[in-house]
């Protein structure tokens, strides 16, 4: 019997030992994440004890700071609605969102040496200090992009295809985060959803801009497709359904098809490569994923594999059907082509410094996905250059610099088409990739392309 008792004792002690290990895991590994979870009400308490850090843009302009002059600390956002969605808010009543929430651990000094320092500060009754954040965002361009949306619902994303640094991330309609308390009831009721960050959380049919993805898939599945020509009769019949094109384009090759945005050709290219290939390409572009830029991104969605019947495949191939993506995803698609198929990891946070100015984290360009080959990118790029030079995207032209682009006018059940433009510049050695979306505004070539052109021009002038 003593043997049994010993075994039983060992078992129970082992069970308790498992608890010690699990508790250590919970405390050491999960602890930092749990501590800054936006639902953790302790953050509000820390807020009142800690001098929350400042958020700067890439040029050192203050985007968010805390005003300590009043009775109660107040968070101020000098750029107001320009950075509203990007930075989010911290509110006792309405919770936490955006980069403010995502960077709590740094801004509240809960990370690195600050953690220990603030522990000591707290014991000694001294002020606790948070760290500072520098973003990759250029607030001037951010403001320009918002101005050009001119009150229309939409989003603009501008990023550096060589590094992944995001320069502009704008969503409209927005709100003044400095007055959140007063306007919240109206914001949460508003049908235009001003609290939604359309640039990363929006779900839109990408329309013809998606043809560059379809083209990449078709060229990967069948390299000869680059030399083939297609005969566009102005419509395509798929399983008895008639898919109308905007014009009768006649005999064209794939580059020309991009330039004139021929639906017939791309629907056919989608059908030719098959659903499996098409889905694989969409995934290769990272469209079904959240790239992890600091704030949550809605992964793009498409029809389930079983639902990819020929009509759905033909529709998805021209960016319609059940396909829904965010503007950020489309900017990344343009960036992938711009950077010869090597898609860099997009990021918003450039540097994190602790309260003493010591650099805690310095973001560097990181490779994210191998999307496609340089050859395929070259073919698509030629088509996109032609689209700006003489095709549908002519309004995106910038004097003295060759822009490559693709427009889209995505049909949707909410009214007029969504106007899209994606592109990059300079075409020879791209340093900027852009995506512009204006909801229910009509043609991408007339509405979205000029916004992209002006933004690219301004950014290039600033030396990006």
């Amino acid at each position, binding site marked *: *019997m*003593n*043997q*049994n*008792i*010993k075994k*039983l*004792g060992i078992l*129970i*002690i082992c*069970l*308790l*030992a*498992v*608890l*010690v290990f*699990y*508790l*250590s895991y*919970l*405390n*050491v590994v*999960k*602890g*930092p*994440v*749990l*501590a800054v*979870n936006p*639902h*953790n*009400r*302790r953050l509000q*308490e820390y807020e009142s004890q800690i001098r929350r850090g400042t958020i700067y843009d890439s040029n050192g302009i203050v985007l968010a700071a805390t005003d300590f002059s009043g009775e109660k600390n107040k968070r101020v956002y000098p750029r107001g609605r320009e950075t509203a969605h990007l930075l989010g808010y911290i509110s006792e009543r309405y919770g936490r969102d955006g980069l403010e929430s995502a960077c709590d651990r740094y801004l509240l000094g809960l990370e690195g040496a600050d*953690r220990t320092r603030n*522990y000591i500060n*707290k*014991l000694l009754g001294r002020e606790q200090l948070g760290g500072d954040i520098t973003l990759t965002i250029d607030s001037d361009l951010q403001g320009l992009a918002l101005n050009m949306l001119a009150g229309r619902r939409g989003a603009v994303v501008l990023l550096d295809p060589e590094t992944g640094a995001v320069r502009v991330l704008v969503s409209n309609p927005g709100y003044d985060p400095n007055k959140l308390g007063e306007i919240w009831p109206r914001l949460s009721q508003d049908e235009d959803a001003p609290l939604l960050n359309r640039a990363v959380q929006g779900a839109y049919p990408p329309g013809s801009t998606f043809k560059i993805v379809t083209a990449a898939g078709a060229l990967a599945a069948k390299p000869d497709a680059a030399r083939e020509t297609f005969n566009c009769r102005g419509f395509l019949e798929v399983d008895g359904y008639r898919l109308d094109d905007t014009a009768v384009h006649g005999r064209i090759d794939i580059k020309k098809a991009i330039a004139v945005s021929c639906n017939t050709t791309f629907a056919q290219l989608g059908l030719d490569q098959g659903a499996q290939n098409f889905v694989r390409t969409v995934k290769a572009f990272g469209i079904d994923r959240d790239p992890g830029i600091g704030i949550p991104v809605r992964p793009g969605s498409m029809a389930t594999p079983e639902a990819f019947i020929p009509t759905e495949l033909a529709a998805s191939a021209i960016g319609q059907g059940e396909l829904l993506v965010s503007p950020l995803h489309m900017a990344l698609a343009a960036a992938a082509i711009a950077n010869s198929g090597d898609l860099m990891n997009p990021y918003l946070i450039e540097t994190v410094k602790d309260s003493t100015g010591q650099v805690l984290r310095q973001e560097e360009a990181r490779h994210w996905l191998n999307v496609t080959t340089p050859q395929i990118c070259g073919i698509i790029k030629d088509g996109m250059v032609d689209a700006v030079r003489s095709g549908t995207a002519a309004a995106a032209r910038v004097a003295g610099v060759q822009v490559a682009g693709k427009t889209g006018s995505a049909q949707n059940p909410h009214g007029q088409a969504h106007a899209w433009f994606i592109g990059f510049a300079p075409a020879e050695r791209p340093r900027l990739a852009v995506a512009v979306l204006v909801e229910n505004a009509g043609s991408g070539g007339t509405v979205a392309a000029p916004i992209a052109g002006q933004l690219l021009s301004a950014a290039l002038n600033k030396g990006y």
Partner: protein
Amino acid sequence: MSGVFYAAPHSNIKGPAGSRTVERNLLFLAALYLLAGIMTLYLGEPGVRVVITVAAGLTVAAVFLLIHFYWKVVGFRGDHYLLPVTAVLISTGLVFLFRLDPYYGVRQFIWILLGLGTLVFTSRVLLDIRFLGDYKYIYALLGLIALILPIFFGKVQGGAKSWLDFGYFQLQPSEFVKILLVLFLASYLAENRNVLAVGTRSLGGISLPGLSEWAPLVVMWGISLLLLVFQRDLGAALIYFGTFLAIVYAATARIFYVLFGLGLFIAGASASYYLFDHVRARVLIWLNPWPYIDNIGYQITQSLFAIGSGGALGVGLGQGYPGYIPLVHSDFIFPAICEELGLLGGAGIIILFMILIFRGVKIALRARDEFSALVAIGLTSLLGLQAFIIIAGVTKLLPLTGVTLPYISYGGSSLVANFILLGLLLNISHEADDSL
């Protein structure tokens, strides 16, 4: 054996009669620990209310030492480590209850004094526990009645209908019945051990037990289900059944019982999963509480936040925000300890329970007869399982089942019952066979 259980020269399970030096020294340390905690509270927020805290702390420390001196005078030879380890657990609970809500602190203080009185009483009156084995069917019946009473006259608290309301205080019979259960099983198994350890029938070379052997298993399973179904007390049901399996295994070493028991357990658990909404909800929030953070998942996520916010050293006594956790004074006191005393504090509590289990196993191994040995290992398993189940529950390692953390959580029934348990273990060690 000495290879497994190392004992320092002075740590004999029974010191020389009349000299309880080890216990005294350790109790002084426990008293220092308690006073340090009380002083922290006092310095943090001086005032009339805190004077009561200081008085309660000093009294508890003094009573623990008085018990030691009493035992020394009467020549009690019980284990030296159980009382000091318990004193540290009790102190932690008392300090945290005063810190969380002085209302519970004061009540817990009174319950601690009552519990310590029960401990002394047990160590005198039930010194020779073997006579307890003679009345097993009487208290089996008593236990069953005590369990059934709340079903008809009970009060629902924390989702479980396992409380009897007496106006000034409430009693949870299942806390006491679990000790009766151990005594009954130990007595029954000490008598029938040899019959049970070998099968009576055989089927194709595998010896199968007869009806008389598996019947008690099924009865026990039934009692656990009774608790589960009528009182909605998942925690108690789990502890009863676990303790039962532990004693049966210790007595017979037959893996058949354990496997059969586990089979019954899985069957019962799956059936209740499909039958009862509250069981399904517990599993749901165990798998992923985050979508339910505003309703049924609130408590467990608040518990995780508290544990995650503590860090290795904790934010310091009185400096955290454990008040966000519902029921923090009772089932959820452990995350409060983790937040304010950190990983080291939390792990320290678990290690103290490991020491209690270790001493309990030693006592069982040296017990004078089989009945005593089975009681000792049964009570030890009971204590260990209860600590494991609630700590695993609040850390989301297992689905949450509401039970108290022994000696720490607020709760009179739990406290007094666990002091009786402690007294019985001490008595068995008092009687222990030195020749081993």
